[in-house]
């Protein structure tokens, strides 16, 4: 058997790269991280005809190889085999209809000398648009094998597989592929020699490609986040750049323009285009969908459907999972002898698994919708139409769908930020998203409103409950947008990435692809965030149940959480909360709606069913030690404001941890939201009390 070989799959965003990757490898993908960054490294084995295995690795979609951040750097590192096994070949997936752009990446990769296979994807679409490509000529001019494919229908896969095997058996070449301007050629040669002398790379072709990349990527003031570059080479690169600038040359422009000159020459030779205007259908659809009036109406309608589906379609599945968990817990309780281990299993482990699985319907649904919107081409139009509005608070047009999903649940919404290209924009969206009032806050609002306002209480024409509920949603939106504006100017400073948004032609999405993608997201959540949620559930359970006391009913007061409630009482008293509310807030960290059941335990009420009327009675009767009523309308409003703004959700923290790749950002998020919630509740309660509002 031949040793294990690696073949990379590269391509522009929207080229159908991931679909082609999945179609080639089946469902055998294995997800890990690239060294040092949080970009998924999706790899899958491909069995060659001789029985040997080739590891296919899906590179993140990109238009070029230049980089400023370590996330962008992985493409070049993977191609040149730095920190990773060097690839035997690269498949570059291109949109056959847009060769004039897509060939740029092909050229850059060809310049590394690694054997290349070009997958001419969506070739059916190009043919339909009257674009004829001379495949033999394209192959001759690039030295790459060219295979037409239609990834969504699985066409051309066998030929592509065979071409991959042939390419992987070829040796890399060191012959210069591109003609560069004379001055640039000298610059590159100088740097190439320095790289070879340092021993960073040993193949001249690879060193030449890396030299180009260094010249294009390194920041003149060291203001880049690129790793693994010896200081000597960095200094040498910057010296060459300085020398060129003094001679009035623009190195970036020279490198990119000379590559594009080659692209244009190839396109002129191999592409024949029918005279008629391309993409007329897309144009006609766009004149409606991006129109100020009709476009707005369609947009509102589509978003309402998504929103409604997330809320109501997931409900039966969530209810089913919840009753399933209760059923399993009952079975375990009946089958196992009572004891601490059984309790751990039932209230810790099984409840924890339930806490994880309960998110699956919403994550699955949201990613089906996002897949549908993205693959049809509409998601890019949403970003196009709404970008102006989002930008006013420092967000990107692509942040809209995740923010809207936040009304349903922050967990899938945080995962949906992956459609945002720039890391800073993605982080910003992730950090403010949990302020959007999610559906788990609703039971809390309902309990509090029903407790502090007698039914029929009205503010003018509207019922008190409706006014309060509306105010809480408004508060959440205003808070999220304000937080975005503030964070953009402070913690996540910077000009923000420019919007570079491709508007692909409208296409009919393939259901198989949609389902496969949604499943991939669900699996990533179960593995990446699920484990943390499970662990936190067990910890929280232990806090509420230990140390144990013999007298029933008094357990919670003596538990760690109960004691913690007493400890924090002086801190939360100015907000109008006593230790019992404090315990509820701590318990709500498992999931906000748990606030209701935790309070039921605190007030020693048997399973609060039927609209929680007994719990409401108990809350209304509750007093401070000096006899003042605890749940005044003012305290209720203060508590609701706290719930709007506080990050009372370990699952959100777990998923931000997974998506940002560090504990730093979820902890920051937790801290700023808690401070915000505390401050706002303090202002509400203290100001209200001074003014004498809502005290009885």
């Amino acid at each position, binding site marked *: 058997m031949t040793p294990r070989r690696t073949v990379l799959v590269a391509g522009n965003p929207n080229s159908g790269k991931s679909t082609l990757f999945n179609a080639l490898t089946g469902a055998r993908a294995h997800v890990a991280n690239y060294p040092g960054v949080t970009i998924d490294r999706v790899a899958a084995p491909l069995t060659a005809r001789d029985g040997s295995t080739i590891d296919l690795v899906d590179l993140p979609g990109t238009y070029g190889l*230049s980089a400023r951040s370590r996330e962008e750097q992985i493409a070049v590192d993977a191609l040149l085999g730095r920190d990773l096994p060097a690839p035997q070949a690269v498949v570059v997936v291109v949109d056959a209809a847009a060769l*004039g752009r897509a060939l740029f990446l092909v050229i850059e990769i060809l310049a590394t000398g690694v054997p290349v296979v070009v997958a001419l994807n969506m070739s059916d679409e190009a043919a339909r648009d009257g674009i004829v490509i001379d495949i033999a000529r394209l192959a001759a001019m690039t030295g790459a094998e060219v295979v037409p494919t239609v990834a969504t229908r699985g066409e051309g896969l066998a030929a592509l597989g065979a071409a991959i095997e042939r390419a992987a058996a070829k040796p890399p070449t060191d012959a210069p592929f591109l003609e560069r301007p004379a001055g640039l050629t000298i610059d590159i040669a100088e740097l190439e020699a320095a790289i070879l002398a340092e021993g960073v790379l040993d193949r001249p072709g690879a060193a030449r490609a890396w030299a180009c990349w260094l010249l294009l990527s390194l920041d003149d003031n060291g203001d880049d986040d690129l790793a693994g570059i010896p200081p000597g080479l960095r200094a040498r690169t910057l010296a060459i750049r300085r020398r060129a600038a003094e001679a009035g040359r623009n190195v970036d422009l020279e490198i990119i*323009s000379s590559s594009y000159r080659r692209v244009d020459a190839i396109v002129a030779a191999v592409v024949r285009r029918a005279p008629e205007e391309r993409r007329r259908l897309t144009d006609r659809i766009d004149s409606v969908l991006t129109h100020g009036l009709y476009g707005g109406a369609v947009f509102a309608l589509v978003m309402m459907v998504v929103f409604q589906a997330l809320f109501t379609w997931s409900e039966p599945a969530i209810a089913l999972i919840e009753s399933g968990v209760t059923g399993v817990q009952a079975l375990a309780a009946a089958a196992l002898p009572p004891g601490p281990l059984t309790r751990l299993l039932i209230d810790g482990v099984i409840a924890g698994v339930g806490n994880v699985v309960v998110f699956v319907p919403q994550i699955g649904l949201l990613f089906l919708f996002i897949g549908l919107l993205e693959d049809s081409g509409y998601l890019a139009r949403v*970003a196009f139409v709404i970008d102006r509005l989002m930008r006013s608070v420092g967000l990107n047009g692509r942040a809209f769908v995740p923010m809207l999903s936040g009304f349903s649940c922050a967990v899938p919404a945080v995962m949906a930020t992956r459609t945002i290209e720039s890391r800073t924009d993605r982080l910003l969206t992730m950090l403010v998203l949990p302020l959007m009032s999610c559906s788990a806050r609703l039971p809390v609002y309902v309990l509090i409103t029903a407790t502090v306002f007698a039914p029929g209480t009205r503010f003018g024409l509207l019922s008190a409950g409706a006014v309060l509920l509306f105010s809480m949603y408004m508060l959440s939106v205003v808070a999220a947008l304000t937080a975005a504006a503030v964070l953009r100017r402070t913690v996540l400073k910077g*000009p923000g990435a*420019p*919007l*570079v*948004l491709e508007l692909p*032609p409208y296409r009919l999405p393939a259901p198989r692809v949609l389902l496969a993608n949604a499943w991939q997201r669900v699996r990533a959540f179960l593995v990446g965030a699920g484990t943390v949620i499970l662990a936190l559930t067990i910890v929280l359970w232990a806090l509420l149940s230990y140390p144990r006391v013999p007298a029933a009913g008094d357990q919670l007061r003596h538990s760690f959480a109960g004691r913690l409630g007493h400890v924090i009482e002086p801190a939360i008293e100015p907000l109008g909360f006593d230790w019992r509310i404090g315990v509820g807030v701590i318990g709500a960290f498992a999931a906000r709606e748990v606030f209701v059941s935790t309070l039921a335990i605190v007030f020693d009420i048997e399973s609060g069913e039927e609209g929680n009327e007994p719990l409401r009675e108990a809350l209304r009767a509750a007093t401070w030690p000096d006899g003042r009523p605890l749940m005044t309308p003012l305290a209720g409003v203060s508590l609701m404001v706290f719930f709007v703004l506080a990050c009372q959700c370990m699952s959100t923290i777990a998923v931000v941890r997974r998506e940002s790749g560090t504990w730093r950002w979820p902890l920051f998020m937790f801290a700023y939201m808690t401070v915000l919630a505390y401050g706002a509740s303090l202002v509400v309660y203290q100001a209200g009390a001074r003014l004498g509002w809502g005290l009885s």
Partner: protein
Amino acid sequence: MTKKPGSLAALPVGGMAVISRVRGQRAVVRRLLEIGLVPGTEVTLRRVAPMGDPIELKLRNFALSIRRAEALGIDVE
């Protein structure tokens, strides 16, 4: 076709021009160049978003949207 140099952002809807220069912050310029907005490329301004920004361009047989802020740095003739 007019040969007056000007900014891409000043092009009327449906107007076509050839890029002559891309100015601005280095990282932004590099990004725009890499996606195909290199000097010599023919660009058409296809439409403007309902709120006046961003704009949609057609170049190299694909549709690209960028903001006016970036388009202002792209000289055309």
